[in-house]
Structures are given as C-alpha cells and as structure tokens.
C-alpha cells in the first residue's frame, strides 16, 4: 500500500514537473522565435499595419506581392545574393584549407614555436576586425584591390577560431591510426586529407555554419571595401531601405526576411552534423 502511494505521488510529481518544464521551454521557444515571426508577418503588411495595437500574424490588407517584388526584382537582388554566396564560400574554402593543416600540426605534430603559434591564435581570437581594419584597408588600397572579391574576403582568410576548434577536435583523433598510416606509407598531407578530414566532417560542418553565418551577416567590412553596386552583398543591400528620414518598412522587412532565410535554411540542413560537431570538438576542454 505504502509503496503504491509513494509511487503514485512520485508519478504525479514527475508529471507536473515535466509539464511545467515543457511549458517553460515552449514559452521560451516562442520568445526566441517571435522576432522572426514578427519579421515575416511585417514583410506581408503595408507600413501602417505594422504597429497596429492588435497585432495579428496575417495582415488585414496583405501586400505580399508588392513588398517582395520590389525587393527581389526592382533591383539586382540575385546579384547581391550571388555576391554574398561567392564571398562566403570563398572565405570558407580558404579558411578550411589554411586552418585544417595548421590545426593538425598543432594537435599531432611537435615543432619548435608551437606554443607561440598557439598562443598567438588564442590572442587572435580576441582581436576584433574593428581594430585591424584600417591597416588592412590601407594595404588593400596599396595593392589596388579595393572593391574586389579578394578584398571582401581577405581579412577572413584565416580563422583563428577554426584553428582552435579543429585543434581541439583533432586531439581526440587516435594517434594509433595516424601511426598506422605512417607505417602504411601515407605522407602527412595524405593523412590530413584522407584520414583526419573525413573524420572531422561534423566539426567542419559546425564551423562552416559559424563561418557562413558570420560572413553572410557581416556589414562592417563590406561597407569599407565594397564600392560598386556590382559587389554589393545581400546584407549590404539592406542599407537601401532607410536614411535619416525615410524608412521603407515594407521593403526593409521583406528584404530582412529574404536575407535571413538562407542562413536559417543552411543551419537547418547542417543541423545534425552541426550539433554533433560541437559535441565532438571537445570544446568542453
């Protein structure tokens, strides 16, 4: 009897707690998602409906076509997206190509100056682009590369974060496999390409999401080095919707939605790998 009672209570407790925590989590999730929902909703609305006191998701006078048409077709939006893609992909590729071997060397090889290198990588993590932008800008002007894809990508060609992340990850890669490979006759480069990289797919995709998101969203650097319309990125094109006195709200939120969407989709696609990658990188230490 006693036990049954106890079980009953436990069961009940457990249930209530679970329900409460689910409620809390859903409430939190709603808060996290609300800005997106609001944005999408607003992108369907005429300006005067956006601040209606009785907010509804669906507008009373939908203006979906007009809002999106002006964003997508009245300007070279396809070009802007293409520019963003080119920049993000170029950056990502170079980052991977430069950081993976370096991370491997730091994690699995011994060489003099290793600690200094790792130290400067840690320091690099703390240096924001704001600090180094002027010297880099001057350098780019010197070589006459302003307003090129190269200029748009260059400061991000090395990611110290990637090196750090991959180093942590590679540390967990078994030494014995690398040694087996050495005995089998792999060169170090081949070890990296054929063994380490395939095993690091989750970490690489985790990093790719970070990198892609960061550079897709970057505004600071494109504002400095992009001068022509031809090189304008999607995020940069968001600038066209407001000046001091005029904000094209309809266009702005439609554009915001269109600019945000690719990242969200990219994340959803890479989600599994991404979460696993984070879990496996031993960021935990």
């Amino acid at each position: 009897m006693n036990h049954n009672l106890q079980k009953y209570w436990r069961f009940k407790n457990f249930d209530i707690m679970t329900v409460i925590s689910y409620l809390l989590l859903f409430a939190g999730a709603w808060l996290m998602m609300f800005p997106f929902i609001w944005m999408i909703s607003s992108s369907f609305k005429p300006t005067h409906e956006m601040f209606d006191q009785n907010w509804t998701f669906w507008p009373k006078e939908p203006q979906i076509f007009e809002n999106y048409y002006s964003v997508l077709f009245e300007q070279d939006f396809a070009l802007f997206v293409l520019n963003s893609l080119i920049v993000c992909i170029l950056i990502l590729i170079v980052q991977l190509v430069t950081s993976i071997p370096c991370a491997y060397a730091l994690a699995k090889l011994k060489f003099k100056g290793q600690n200094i290198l790792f130290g400067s990588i840690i320091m690099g993590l703390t240096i924001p682009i704001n600090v180094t932008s002027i010297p880099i800008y001057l350098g780019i002007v010197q070589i006459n590369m302003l307003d090129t894809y190269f200029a748009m990508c260059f400061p991000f060609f090395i990611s110290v974060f990637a090196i750090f992340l991959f180093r942590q990850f590679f540390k967990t890669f078994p030494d014995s496999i690398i040694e087996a490979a050495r005995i089998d006759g792999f060169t170090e480069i081949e070890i990296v390409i054929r063994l380490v990289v395939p095993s690091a797919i989750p970490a690489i995709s985790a990093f790719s999401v970070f990198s892609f998101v960061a550079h897709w969203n970057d505004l600071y650097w494109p504002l400095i080095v992009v001068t022509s319309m031809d090189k304008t990125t999607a995020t940069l094109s968001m600038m066209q919707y407001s000046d001091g006195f005029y904000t094209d709200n309809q266009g702005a939120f439609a554009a915001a939605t269109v600019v945000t969407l690719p990242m969200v989709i990219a994340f959803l696609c890479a989600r599994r790998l991404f979460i696993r990658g984070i879990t496996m990188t031993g960021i935990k230490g």
Partner: protein
Amino acid sequence: KVKITCLADGSRLTRQHQPLMKMFNEMQSEIEVEYMSPAKNYGDVHLKMMRASATNTLPDCAFQAYNQLPSLARALAARGQIVNFQDLFAREAQGWVDDNYTPEILENGVVDGKQYGMPFNASVYQWYYNNDLIKKVGGREADFHTWEGVMELAKKLKGAGITPFAGWLVDGDDWGWQMLILSQGGRLLDKNAGDKVTFNENDYGINALKMVKRWVDEAGYDPDADYRQQSTAFTEGNMGFFATSPAGAKSIQEKVGGKFDLKSTTFAVWNDKDGLLPTGGNAGVITTKDPKKIDAAWEYIKFVTGPKGQEFAAKITGYLPTNKRALLPEYLGDYYKKNPYFATPGNQFERAGPWVGYKGTQSEKIWREQRTVIRSVMLGETPIKEGAAKLQKIAEDLMQK
C-alpha cells in the same frame, strides 16, 4: 562615352538618385552615370569620402550633408581633389545661376568662400500636426507660427492628457540646435571667417536653452525619446505635433495611412525678420581630376539640381527644391497647390539658411559633447547660463584642430 561614378546614401540612393540616374542616362548618350554601393547614412558618406581621399580612390561625384561638407571640402581641397563650382558657373550663360538658384540656397554649398557643393536636397524644419487632436483642444494653424503659440498649444494638449509634441533635437545631429540659434537671427559661427563661435552673442544661446527647458518643463517634451520613437508616436496618432524635415513628409504620410487628419505648416521663428532655419540636406560635389569627367559630372549635377531633377526629388520625398525654377507651375507649382501638405517647404523657401560645420574635423565630436550639456540643461541638471558657457567652451576647445 564618359562614365562617372557617384556616391549617395541609404534610401536616398534608391528613391531619388537611381531613378534620376536612369532618366539622365536615357536622356543623352555621351555620359553614363552609375552609383556606388550605398553608404549607410550621411556620416558613412563622409567617412567613405575621407577614407577614399586619403587613399586616392574617390568617386567622381558624391552627395554630402551640408554640415559635414566644410570638413570634407577642406580636406579634399588641401589635396586638390575637389572642384569649385564657381569655375563651372563661368561656362554657363550669363544669369543662368541667378535664374536657377537663390544665394541662400547656394550658400549651403559654400566653404571658405568657395562653391564646393551644389545643393541637391534641402530641408528646413516644419511642423506636422494631427489636426484631429489640435481641433479637439481648440488650436489653430496660426498657433504654430510663434513659440508662445506653440507653448500654449502644447499646454492645452498636455492638459488633455495627450503627448504634446516632439522634434529633432538631442537625438541626431546639431540641426535642431542650429535652428534654435538661427531662428533668433543668430549665427553659430561668425559669417566671414567661420573661425569664431558666435552662438552665445546676444544671449542667443541662453534663450535657446531657456526655450528647450520650457519645452520639457511646461510642454511635456520628452528628451529621452529618440527620433524613431517620436515619429512613430506621432504617426500612430498619439501626439499632437511634430517638428522635422520635409524629407519625412512622404514617409509620415505612408505611416499615418488614413488614421487622422495629417497636416503640415511652416515653422515657428522668434525673429520674423532675420530669423532663418538651417537647411538640412545634401549637396553634390565633384571629386575627380579628369577634365572630361568633371564636365560629365557637371552635366549630371546640373540635371539633378535642375527643375526637372528637383521636381522629381521633391515629389518623391517632400524635400524643399533647391532650384528656383522648380517652383514654376509646370514643375511643382500646380502640384503644391493641389497638395498643401507637401507645399510647406515652398512656403518657407526664403527662410532657408545655412547649416554650418565647425572648422577642423571635430564637428561631430563637438556636437556629441554639446548635446550632453543640452540634455542636462533640459533635465535641470545644469543651470542655463553655465550650460551656455559650456557649449561655447566645448566648441572652442575642439574647433582648433
């Protein structure tokens, strides 16, 4: 074909410049105009120009806010990177300048006696008001034309539990502050050399500060609300009246939709005789050294500051046209008659005075520090006299550089 590249900011690019560029490019076949990627705002235009100047990567022309024009023009002039329009005026037919531009308007583009900028957009303060609310408390349009009238109106609204008014002042650039000085007939800097701070002459500064303190104390002005908030409050119908540039006319109208009876009217000045209002907006500058490009850019700037260009710009934004001829019936004259809401800028065409910047590069910094003082005066934290003195000291300290 000569190709020239220009720089403009934000939605000014999309709404005004790009259509104008298209018109111009279609109009003739010798010149092709294109625009650079947009700057974020006026400040960013300035920054981009300065950076480009230092690295010799300037565009061929640009549209720069009046208050930052001096600092830009001086830096560029020192490097020989900017064109004096007076040289170009000489090529035009006799009287052409006077036919098109008033001296007051042109003065906005003058730095150190040289015409470095051609005013493109211009705006002076105007009132927007919610006629429904004004009527409710028994106000009239005439109330807006004197400060005492404005204060009375504000008190009435406050009494009725309505947020009385707001206006461009401490949030944003020093346009509002210069308005307070100019509308008394004062000047920020001495007219000739521009190297002496004069806003405290004749107690202009003290009066200005007294006024803004009254706004807060008597008229319920909220120094904490930023521009965007003020504007939404007004457009949502929660505020009696609102002071800002005509540039916002279109935007405000769109936001209001049909929620209330929206009207605009000319601004209040203290001194009806000498009182001016600073002109906001921007001027075109030519920053190429290539004579062919200079010619091309001049053609383009003539077009955009011409009657046609100004008609277009004014209609799509509400800005005050910078070209006299634009007020002719075939351009804006009839339109203004039909749309009194948009006509206000034309009605205070003569009040358009200069919006100046301090010598050196620190105008921005001077204003940022001054507005802290103004705000603290408004909140009663700093006595008015002390505040006025502080304002002058800040300007004098930083201006030297």
